[in-house]
Structures are given as C-alpha cells and as structure tokens.
C-alpha cells in the first residue's frame, strides 16, 4: 500500500496539483473509512478506483466494509468500467445486508438490460440476479424472461445462470421458471446448453419430460459444449436414460444390481430367462453412448469421470471396458483427482473386476504417494486379486510392509487378510506370512497382524494350534491393547487346542490385570470364564482372583461384567437356570467374520457423485432410477418438425409473452394444445395472432369474447395499416371482412401452419449470421403468402414482420412488446382491458375473464377491485363457484367474491373481488372451484393498476414533486409515436397505462398526472414534457422505487408506439 500510495502521491503531484495530494494525506488519516468515503465522493475516476480496490481488498480479507454501502452504491453508474465492476462485486457481497439501499442501484441495472452492448446486458442481468433482495423478485423474473429471448446467446446463457439464483431466492417462482427453462432447453447453441441443463438440475430435476424433445439435440451438441456444461449434461442424461431405456445387460443375467463375484454361475442360472425376447438397443440409447465416448479423451478429469460413470451405469457389459484406460490415465493427475478417481475405481472393480485387471500395475503404490492414496490403491489391488494374480499382488504387499508409513502398513496387513479370506488357495500362504510378521520389530505391525490372524484363524482353528501357541508367547512383549485383547480372545476361544498354555497365560494376565487397558481386562475376564468352564481344576482360583480384582475396578463395565460372569459360571445355590447353559453360552461356535470391501454396494449411488464419495446421501442428490421393466414410448423423443420448430421459433425470438404474466394461466403450459392457447393469450408475435384466429374460427358462438378480441386486433392493426397497401379499409369494414372470411380461414388453417413452420424454421438458427438468411426466407414466405391471402389483415401482419426484420433483430423484441402494449392497455372507447383467467377449454366449458374495474373496492379501500366475468359455455350447469386455497406473498390479502350458487349453461355472471397486492406486481394465486373441479389460476396486476387517481392542483403537484427528488425521481427521454403527438393522445395513453388522474396545467407542453398507490398511499407523480418533433421527457416521482421504475417502463412503451 505504501508503495502504491507513494506512486500515487508522485503522480498527483505531477498531474493533479496540490488539491489531489490532499486526498493522499486523507488516506492515512485514522478515521475509519472516512478517507475511502471521501475518495469515492470525488469526481476523479482514479481516486474512486483506488478506493474501490482497497475496499475489495478488505472484502477479500473478510473485513467488514458494509458501512461504506451508501458511498459505494452511488458509483454504480460510474462510467469507468473497472470501477463499475468493483462496485458490482461490492454490491453483490453486501446487498443482502442492506436491502433498502441496494434498491437504489436497481434502476441502473434495468437500464443496463436494454443496452445495445450484449456484454453490458449480460453483466447487468448477472448482477441484478445476484442481488439477493426478495423485493426485486418480480423485476428479476421480468429480466430473466426477457433475456431468455435475447438475440445474443451470451445473454441467454446469463439468463440460464440467473434461473437458479432466482429460484433459491424465491422457490414460489418455480412454475414460471420452468417455463423459461423449457424455452431455453430448446435453444440450439452450445453456449446455452450447459447452463440451462444446470438450471434444470437445480430447479426441476424431476421434470424429465422436458428433456424428451431436446434429447437428441443435446446428444449431438455435447461434443461442442464447454467442459463444465458437458459434465452436467452427461450426468443428467445418465439419469434420463435410466428412465427411458431398457437394461442392455438384461439377457446376460448380470443386471446392474447383482454382485459380480461369481459372474460365471450367474449365467447358468439365467439359462431359463434367455427365452425372453432378444434385447435390441434403442437407437437413442446407442446415440448417447456413441456421442459420449470421444469425451473420454477430454483433458478435464470431471468430463472423463462423467463419461465413465455413464458407461458404467448404461453400457452393455461388453462395452464398459473402454473406460478403464481413461480412468487409469487420470491417476497421473493431481492427488485430489487420484483420490476421487480411486474411490470410484474401487467401487467399479468390485463389480467389473475384469475391466481393470490389465492395468493392475498402474495401481502399484509409490513411496511418494500420500497415505490416503496408498490406502485406496490397496483397496483396488485387493479387489482385483484373484487366483492368477495373487502371487504378484502378495509380493507387492510384501514390499509395502517395509514402508515407513505405519498407517499404510496396517492397511496392507488388513488387505492381506482380505485376500486370504477371498482366495482360499492362498489362505495358508497369507497366514504364514502374517505369522512371520509377528516377529517384526515394529509393534504396530505385530499388533495389526494379530488382529488379522485372529480373524483368519476363526475360519479353521483346528489346523492352526501352532500359531495360537506362538501368539500366546507374544503376550509377554506386545503392548498394543487391541492386539493383546485379540490374543486373549483367541486363547480363550480355542483353549481346548492349547490346554497347557492357556492357564499359564491366564496366570500371567492375572498378575498384570490392574495395569491393563479396559479392553484387555474384559478379555481377561472372558478368558478366565472360558477356562473355568473347560478346565476348572487348574484355573478355579485364578478365575476367582481375577473376578475379585474386576469387582473393584474403576470401570463400571468391567465391574458389571465380573458380576454377571460370576453369577453365570460359579454354581451357587441361588444361581438360576442359566448357569446350566453357561458352557453353551460361552463356547458356542462363532461365525467367522466376513472381510469385505467398504466399497461393496456403493454403486447404488451414481458414480462420480459426492454422495458416492461420502457413501451418504448429500443434499440435492437425485437417485439413479432402476431400469424400467418395459421401455416407455420412444416416440416422445421424435422431434416433429412442426411442433418443436415452432416452439423454438416462438421461444427464441418471439415469445415476449413473458412480459405479460397476468394474461397467462398457470395450467396452460401442461399440454401442447393448451400452450398454443397460452401463446394466444400472450398475443404478441404474429404467429400467435394467427393461431388466435384459427381458434377463434372454431369459437363462433362466443360472440362477446370475440368482440373484445377484435377490438384488440384493431389496435394491433393501427401500426400495421400504414404499411398496408389495402389499408384504407375502415375498421368497420375490416370487421365484416373478417367475419366473412372466417370459414375460409379455418380451411386455410393448414396453410397458416405451414407458414408458421417455415417462419420459425428460419428463426430457429439464432446465430446472428443467419439473420439475413432468415430475412430472405421471410420475404419469400410473405410473397407466397400474399398469393393466396387477400385478407388485408394478414398482409399487414406479415409486412409488419418485414419491417421488424429490416429494422434489425435487436428491435424485434421491442416491437413485439409494443404490440403487446396495445393489446393490453389501449382499449378504444375507453373499454377496460380484460384478461383471461380461465380458458374455455381448460375450464371445461367455464371461461373466466377479469379486468381491473378501477372502481374503489368498497369493503376495503386498500384493495384493488377485480371484476370477473364467468361464462358457462358448457352444456350443463355449473354450481357453487367460489375461491379456495389462496396463496399469497406475505402481506397480501384477498377479499373473495360471494359464492355463485348456480351458473346455468350458456349464461354469464359477474362478480367483484378485492386484492391487496401490497404495492407489488406479485401474482395472487388461488383455486377457482366449481362443484366438480378445481382450477389453479393467478392474477398478476400490471403496475398501472396498483394505484388510484388523486386530484391535485398544479401547485400541490409541484410542491409534492419537490419533495420526491433525487433517487425518487426517474427521468427518461423518448420520442413520441407519430400518432401520439397531441395532448389528447398522450393523456389517453397514459391514463390507459396507469390508473392516474390528470392534473390541470397551464402549459400545453406539459401533461401531469397524479395518483396514490392503493395499499400504502404513496404518491405517484407523472410528468410528460413534450418538445419539438416528438421528442419528450418522461418524469416519474414516486417514493416506491420499484413501482416507479416499472411504471416508467410501461408508460414509455405506451407512448413510443
């Protein structure tokens, strides 16, 4: 710091003069952070940068810098990009602690989201979504949805990254996020694929159905996806394949769940099963195996491991072998990598021993390996041992025993013991070798050998009394308690084989009893008891003596044991029936211990996972499902060009429906046909408009609904007309025209489908390069379309598209959005915009629309009145319409409408309910119940409906405005739409966009509006100042920052189109 400061000092002396030098001295002042604050407040970027660097260094060291929050957050809009980035770092770190202040920065990011530079858009989204403040959840949601349709794949990738962030902040958003994930899954760029699968895994890993359509695409993209994405995708596809395909080993008997110690026998057993129909691998299954195999050559260990586990879990037995070589290669990597790989190899080697046998030598241990690696290699070597290679392995073990690493030596001895139990041919050799070790000078080696020998002897004690005698001698020297205890147990257990030595051992032990460890004492008591039962003549007194000593031992376990054993073995008058059975109790034949690998059966965890490594389920672990009995329908993965491509088309560039949450119904995304009606409601893209017509033509009976939709369409046409050669036709005519053309339209439905197809086909390739191509296609398509479409409206629509194309892709979404604005807000003849709550088809004949009536809700003034219109178009009556199970964000309230007892077929009824949205655009979710069904619905208000008009005079307005300056004021410059350059139009558009009242004003250059938010009554002041040639400035003053920013956005859209 000193060096740097000195440099700075010199620098400023030269460049900045005396004034700047002052700051340097401030830097050394002792006031806590005052110097930094001052530097941040200065107008020199270099000082700001220096301050930010020091602050970041503080954060890095874990020092608390939260008191600088206000000073730092002011610089969020700084022009210097490095300062900005460091401010972001700071903001993300402390926003959670300083939620209110953090909101100050939100508008900057919202501006950033609109920036023409994709890097800035992406980083704005990154930071916005990293700020963990619950209140901005709706803003984040909006931003994510918008970014998911961005033309830059980098921004879309960032959107995919933002999904899990929002999900962890507010799990309630799951349903909406799944929609975004679905949209992004259809993305065809490699950049997005990994990130969106990651989001999928974190948010909705259970929605395996979302993968079907994208399965083949993911398989084919895999090799070009970046490494980290590959890992995530491969792991997910492993799970997917386990649910969709049949077990490839089904006819070989070796289904995944059996152990493979005796694979030869298995095959005989399965002779009968072979009658099953021959197994044919699903081509999609093959595709996955084929496309992942090259990745075994990746330089990234995680990728190699992911492929290895995929092959282990999914490939036919004959093909699994290819992974061994790659895994062995990983053993030359860093020791941490070795550690993980060896754990997995250990598990695999139990089941598929043959696979690693050729690489036996690669698991040989080097003296330089860390102990934990050595132990794991031992484990693998032990698992690989069989009749043929055991001699080399044992020889290798021999050298290991000489190692200086005692833990490792102990593990080696254990391993020898395991080899001995598993391979009967070498049992004697091993036992002999171990006995030899008993004369080793290192006590630890001896002790460990004793323990292992004890286990081995239990298998065939009668043959080895020599060894037992040898071990009896060891009690004189060996001090390790566990070993002493083992020896005593052995002598006691097999005292009949060593009748002469055993009493002598007991004698020695009795002598040293008080000095022994507890575990040894217990075994001495055991030995005494057993000898008493078999050889009471010689040992009676000794036993008495030992038991007496134990009676006064400090340890209560030992006292208890002594008391218990005395009662059991020493016959007294009082002793119960049990003493008769004492011999049976003590000298029963004990089963030999089974020495088996700790890695046995670990493969029920997905290999390579954290859970597998820890052998315990980690949070968020997804079980690897068992193979299905019968394969599910493989056709679900067929990508029908029409459907999916269309989905891609709407998803990637078009679907701005995301912006219009309120119009969406939650249940809609469930099935394909319904989702088309969903997009109809979102009513933004031209395709969805067409599909709307198509569905309308089926719905002729619904006069009223149609009426309204046509109104919307008329608005849609307004901007189009000027491009339309036939556009002179009045609205009235058009309506007639439309009616006439209805039957024809339904005929031409298929055509329009085709159109959609080709159109979206062109837009499916989203890379910027193909833009022009898409444009050309579009033009062609339009031409052909013109040929058989006279409908003025159709031409208009398609021409609009052309215009958008010409204007460049970046404007596309804006344009669509503004179309949406028309749909939503400008209802001619001041009709209120109504939204659909329940579609006729989803509602099984019951359709519900709602609108914000803008009337005061009488029961509670703090609630927004929502007027609902129920139409029963079913053939039967609907009864008991009411609301249930209201799910709200905290603070929100709902006043339900009174139950509608009967809605006869074909009738319509209206009801009003009140919702307190708490001044947020959070949706109110509830169930709409009839006597038979329940429907999940949600109402989400546009921000403009969250306020009620208030009347202010010009002076009052100015006074209030003066108090809402600074951060409460948001100003935007805009160019007014051509048709919106007179005062009347402006007023009309603003009041439709938001429930505000006009403030009388002397100047005709300014329009002012005022309102208060419904819940908190905060003032909302809007000023539109017009200048020459349609330029204008919009100012919104509002205490509630979030409301203010959202309102600005809405009004801007209303005025610019």
């Amino acid at each position, binding site marked *: 710091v000193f060096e740097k400061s000195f440099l700075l000092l010199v620098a400023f002396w030269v460049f900045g003069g005396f004034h700047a030098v002052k700051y340097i001295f401030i830097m050394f002042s002792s006031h806590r952070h005052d110097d930094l604050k001052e530097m941040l407040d200065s107008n020199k970027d270099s000082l700001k940068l220096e301050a930010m660097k020091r602050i970041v260094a503080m954060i*890095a060291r874990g020092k608390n810098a939260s008191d600088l929050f206000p000073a730092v957050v002011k610089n969020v809009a700084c022009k210097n990009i490095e300062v900005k980035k460091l401010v972001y770092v700071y903001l993300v*770190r402390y926003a959670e602690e300083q939620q209110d202040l953090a909101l100050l920065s939100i508008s900057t990011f919202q501006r950033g989201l609109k920036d023409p530079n994709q890097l800035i858009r992406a980083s704005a989204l990154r930071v916005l979504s990293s700020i963990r403040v619950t209140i901005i959840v709706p803003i984040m949601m909006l931003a994510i949805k918008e970014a998911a349709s961005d033309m830059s794949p980098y921004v879309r990738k960032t959107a995919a990254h933002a999904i899990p962030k929002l999900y962890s902040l507010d799990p309630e958003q799951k349903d909406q996020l799944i929609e975004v994930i679905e949209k992004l899954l259809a993305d065809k760029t490699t950049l997005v694929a990994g990130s969106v699968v990651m989001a999928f895994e974190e948010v909705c890993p259970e929605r395996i159905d979302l993968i079907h359509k994208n399965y083949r695409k993911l398989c084919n993209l895999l090799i070009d996806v970046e490494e980290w994405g590959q890992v995530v995708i491969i792991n997910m596809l492993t799970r997917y394949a386990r649910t969709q395909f049949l077990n490839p080993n089904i006819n070989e008997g070796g289904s995944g769940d059996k152990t493979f110690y005796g694979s030869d026998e298995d095959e005989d057993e399965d002779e009968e099963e072979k009658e099953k129909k021959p197994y044919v691998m699903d081509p999609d299954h093959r595709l996955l195996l084929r496309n992942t195999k090259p990745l075994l050559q990746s330089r990234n260990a995680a990728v190699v491991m992911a492929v290895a586990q995929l092959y282990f879990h999914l490939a036919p037995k004959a093909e699994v072998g290819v992974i061994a070589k790659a895994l062995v290669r990983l053993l030359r990597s860093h020791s941490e990598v070795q550690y*993980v790989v060896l754990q997995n190899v250990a598990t695999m080697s139990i089941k598929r021993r043959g696979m690693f046998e050729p690489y036996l030598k*690669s698991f040989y241990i080097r003296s330089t390996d860390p102990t934990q690696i050595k132990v794991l290699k031992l484990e693998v070597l032990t698992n690989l041992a069989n009749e043929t290679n055991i001699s080399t392995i044992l020889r290798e073990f021999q050298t290991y025993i000489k190692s200086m690493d005692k833990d490792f030596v102990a593990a080696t001895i254990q391993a020898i013991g395991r080899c001995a139990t598993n391979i009967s041919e070498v049992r004697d050799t091993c036992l002999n070798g171990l006995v030899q070790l008993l004369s080793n000078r290192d006590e630890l080696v001896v002790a460990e050998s004793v323990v292992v020998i004890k286990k081995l002897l239990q298998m065939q004690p009668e043959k080895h009394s020599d060894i037992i005698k040898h071990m009896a001698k060891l009690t004189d020297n060996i001090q390790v308690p566990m070993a002493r205890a083992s020896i005593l147990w052995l002598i006691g257990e097999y005292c009949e084989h060593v009748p002469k030595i055993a009493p002598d051992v007991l004698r020695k032990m009795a002598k040293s009893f008080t000095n022994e460890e507890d575990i040894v004492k217990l075994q001495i008591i055991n030995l005494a008891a057993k000898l008493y039962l078999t050889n009471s003549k010689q040992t009676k007194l000794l036993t008495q003596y030992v038991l007496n000593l134990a009676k006064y031992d400090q340890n209560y376990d030992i006292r208890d044991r002594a008391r218990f054993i005395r009662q059991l073995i020493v016959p007294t008058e009082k002793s119960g029936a049990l003493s008769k059975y004492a011999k049976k109790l003590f000298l029963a034949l004990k089963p030999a211990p089974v020495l088996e690998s700790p890695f046995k059966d670990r493969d029920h965890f997905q290999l390579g996972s954290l859970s597998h490594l820890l052998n315990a389920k980690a*949070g968020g672990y997804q079980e690897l499902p068992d193979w299905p009995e019968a394969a599910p329908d493989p056709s679900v993965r067929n990508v029908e060009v029409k459907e999916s491509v269309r989905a891609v088309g709407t998803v990637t560039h078009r679907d701005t429906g995301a912006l219009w949450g309120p119009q969406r119904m939650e249940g809609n995304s469930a099935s394909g046909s319904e989702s088309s009606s969903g997009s109809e409601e979102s009513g933004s893209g031209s395709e969805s408009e067409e599909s709307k017509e198509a569905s309308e033509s089926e719905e002729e009976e619904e006069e009223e609904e149609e009426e309204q939709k046509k109104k919307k369409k008329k608005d849609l046409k307004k901007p189009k007309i000027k491009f339309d050669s036939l556009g002179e036709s009045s609205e009235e005519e058009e309506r007639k025209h439309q009616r006439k053309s209805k039957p024809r339209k339904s005929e031409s439905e298929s055509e329009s489908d085709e159109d959609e197809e080709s159109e979206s086909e062109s837009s499916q390739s989203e890379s910027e390069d193909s833009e022009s191509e898409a444009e050309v296609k579009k033009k062609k398509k339009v031409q052909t379309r013109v040929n058989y479409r006279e409908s003025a409206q159709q031409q208009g629509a398609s021409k609009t598209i052309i215009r958008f194309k010409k204007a460049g892709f970046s404007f596309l979404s804006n344009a669509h959005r503004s179309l949406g604005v028309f749909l939503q807000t400008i209802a001619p003849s001041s009709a209120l915009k109504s939204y659909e709550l329940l579609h006729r088809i989803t509602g099984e004949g019951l359709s519900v629309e709602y609108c914000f009536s803008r009337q005061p809700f009488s029961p509670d003034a703090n609630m927004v009145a929502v007027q609902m219109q129920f139409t029963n178009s079913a053939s039967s009556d609907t009864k008991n319409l009411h609301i249930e199970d209201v799910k709200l964000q905290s603070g929100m309230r709902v006043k339900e409408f009174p139950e509608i007892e009967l809605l006869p077929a074909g009738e319509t009824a209206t009801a009003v309910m009140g919702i307190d949205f708490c001044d947020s655009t959070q949706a109110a979710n509830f169930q709409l119940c009839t006597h038979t069904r329940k429907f999940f619905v949600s109402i989400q208000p546009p921000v403009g409906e969250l306020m009620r008009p208030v009347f202010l005079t010009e002076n009052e307005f100015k006074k209030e405005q003066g108090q809402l300056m600074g951060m409460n004021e948001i100003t935007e410059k805009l160019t007014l739409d051509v048709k919106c350059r007179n005062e009347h139009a402006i007023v009309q558009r603003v009041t439709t966009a938001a429930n505000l009242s006009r403030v009388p004003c002397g100047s005709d250059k300014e329009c002012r509006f005022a309102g208060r938010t419904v819940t908190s009554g905060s003032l909302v002041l809007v000023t539109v100042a017009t200048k020459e040639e349609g330029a204008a400035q919009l100012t919104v003053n509002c205490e509630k920052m979030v409301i203010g920013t959202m309102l600005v956005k809405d009004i801007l859209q209303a005025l610019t189109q």
Partner: protein
Amino acid sequence: MIHSLFLINASGDIFLEKHWKSVVSRSVCDYFFEAQERATEPENVPPVIPTPHHYLISVLRHHIYFVAVIQSEVPPLFVIEFLHRVVDTFQDYFGVCTEAAIKDNVVVVYELLEEMLDNGFPLATESNILKELIKPPTILRTMVNTITGSTNVGEQLPTGQLSVVPWRRTGVKYTNNEAYFDVVEEIDAIIDKSGSTITAEIQGVIDACVKLTGMPDLTLSFMNPRLLDDVSFHPCVRFKRWEAERILSFIPPDGNFRLLSYHVSSQNLVAIPVYVKHNITFREGSSQGRFDLTLGPKQTMGKAVESVLVSSQLPRGVLNANLNPSQGTYTFDPVTKLLTWDVGKINPQKLPSLKGTMSLQAGASKPDENPTINIQFKIQQMAISGLKVNRLDMYGEKYKPFKGIKYMTKAGKFQICPYNTPFTGFSLTVLTNQIHVFR
C-alpha cells in the same frame, strides 16, 4: 454449486475469501483445520470433508489450500478440476501462485474469480477469453494505470466466446509468426535393487507455444503414431480426424497451451536411461552404517543425462551422514532425515558415486527398513519412447510461419526400491521352521 472459496496458507491463516452466493461464515473452515490436524502430512488432508451443513472440497497447490464450500450434490471432480484451473490461471497471470502474489494482486484475483464463476457455476475458464476480459498485470501497465486511471478490464465481450472456436481470441496479429512444440516425456518407474524393472511407463505431453496471425488451421502428424496408447486432447483438437487418420488437426489457442498428453503403453519395453548400484547396510550392535551408491547411464542413445538429483529418505535412526561425493554436492537434513545429492551431469567415463558412513543413534536397534531412492534427471533432444513428429502444416493463412520442435525426457516418479524381488518371505518352509523353534 460452489458457494464460497477460502484460501488458506501453510500456517492456517485464511487470507482470501470469496462468496458467490450468500455469505458463508469463515468458521466453516474450522472443520478443515480439524481434519488438517488429524492428518499427519499436509497432503493427507482428505479432499472432501463433510460438515453438518456444508461440504468442503479442497486442493493443495504451492502450499496453499484452496477450500471450496459446497452445499449440495455436485460431482467432486468437477470442483477439484475447477480449483486446479483457478490455480493454473493465477499462475498464468502472475507467473507464480504464491500467497504473496495473490495478496499483491488481490483485485485482479477477485475480478478473475468473478468472471470464472457465476452463481458457483463456471462461466469463463479459457485463458484466452479471460485475458481479453481482464488483462494480466505487468509492471508497465500497473504504472500507466496508476497514473492515468485507466483500467485492466476489457470493455468488449471477447469475441471468441461467441464464435465456433471459443478458445481462440480474434484479431491476433504478430510480426514474427512462430509455432513451437515441446515434446516432453516422463518416465515413471519402479526398479528393484538388482536393476530389473518392476513397472515402467512413459507419460508424454506436447506443450505448444503458438503465436500466429489470424485463424491458422494446423495439422501435426507423427512418424509413429501407433506408439500413443492413450491420449487426451485440448478441446481444439478435432477428434474425428485423429480417430480416422491419426493426425492432430486443430485451430490453436493463442499463446501457450497443452495440446496433447499421452501415454505410451507399458507393453512396449521402456528403455531405462540410468542405472543405480547401491549398497546401504547397517550392522547390529554397531552405531555405524555404510552407504555406497554409484550411478551410470544406460540406453540413452548417446545423449547426456543431465540435472541428476538423487534423494532418499534415510531411516529415523540415522543421526548424521558423512559422505564423499565424487562430483556434485550432497546435503543431509538431520530433522527430516532427507538425503539429497545434486549430481549434475553424468560422465560415462567417470561414473559419479557417493560413499561414506552414517552414524546411528547409540543403543538404538538396527533400522529394519532400507531407504528407497528417488532419482530425477533430464535428457535433452530425445523422446525416450521414440516418438517423432513428422511434419507440421498450416492452412487458412498465407504467411510462412517459423516452426520448431523440441524433445526432452525427464524422470517422473522414478524410484529404486531397496529389495530384490521376488521376496522370499512368504514361503511355507520358513514358517514351519519357525514354528519348530517355538516348540
């Protein structure tokens, strides 16, 4: 995925922390310290440590523990591999990855970490992309930045990230166009006392330094590609081409990168370039031990064996060693009991040797282990496997680049074990004899 990262130095200080999600208190590292205490050696700390609410995954590089905090299921290798990538990046940026370097460049480190992970998921890990986003610090740039207040941060999104070749930056320009390749092979071997090979394998890498203008498309072919048994590639290598023609075809990243690492199958007989004759003996009852070690070249195809370094961990009982090297210098650390002998170049005419006595702790029994001997060496201008590059061609650009290839062989984990195999221990006769004695 990755919640937080803590950097911990050898003395157990947390000197850097970074959080990508909610802040995780640094007290979580206490579990790590516990595990560290339990482990006898620094490298024996388990890489994965479960704690009640988190999992700690750590790697140890350059005496710094990089501890990542995880909250839910994630492939452990994913995190480990990423942490190593972080270290590599630091090394790339600062030349070394030490505590001092990180502390000096803490802002760049923070900016890098910010770019490398988003919400705990890797975002940009390619060095070419990172260097466009954040320029590596140089002394000159630091000076200029301090004075002018300009920044290290790039203003544009690296174009490579969006192209089909995400590993290469665009708009590369050089006046001298050059492409150099280093074929470096390491021999891992265990050799017994008599000089016979227990295991021997060759690991090789081809490191490249490519400074070429524009978007060159290179192909590299080998005289004897069949030697390569198992390979792993930089993502730039076209796998299909390799499968079909055994030719490396790639658009290289700019600068230094590892093109390929390979393994030469152990079926091929591996030539062992040095031999060791050694005799280390301790006598019962005597406080002296004899040490005698001679090195010699073997199968080196006439090339000189250089930079030879012999090291051995002597038994604990050894107090001191009084040795006499025929060339080079030796050191013995009485605390760690590590003997190292820096031999230098082996002269085939006059073989280097190290002879002398070791003094043992008085009264201590004779050490029963003989020490293993580790050897390092280098041989220039030779790839021990015999791998030869045939030619390098460039397509896509018009200029003629300078091309160069260099071969080198090094010892990897090359150790001489102190016993002759097969060891006679496990024979039944010995056992029966012993048992007779017991009787």
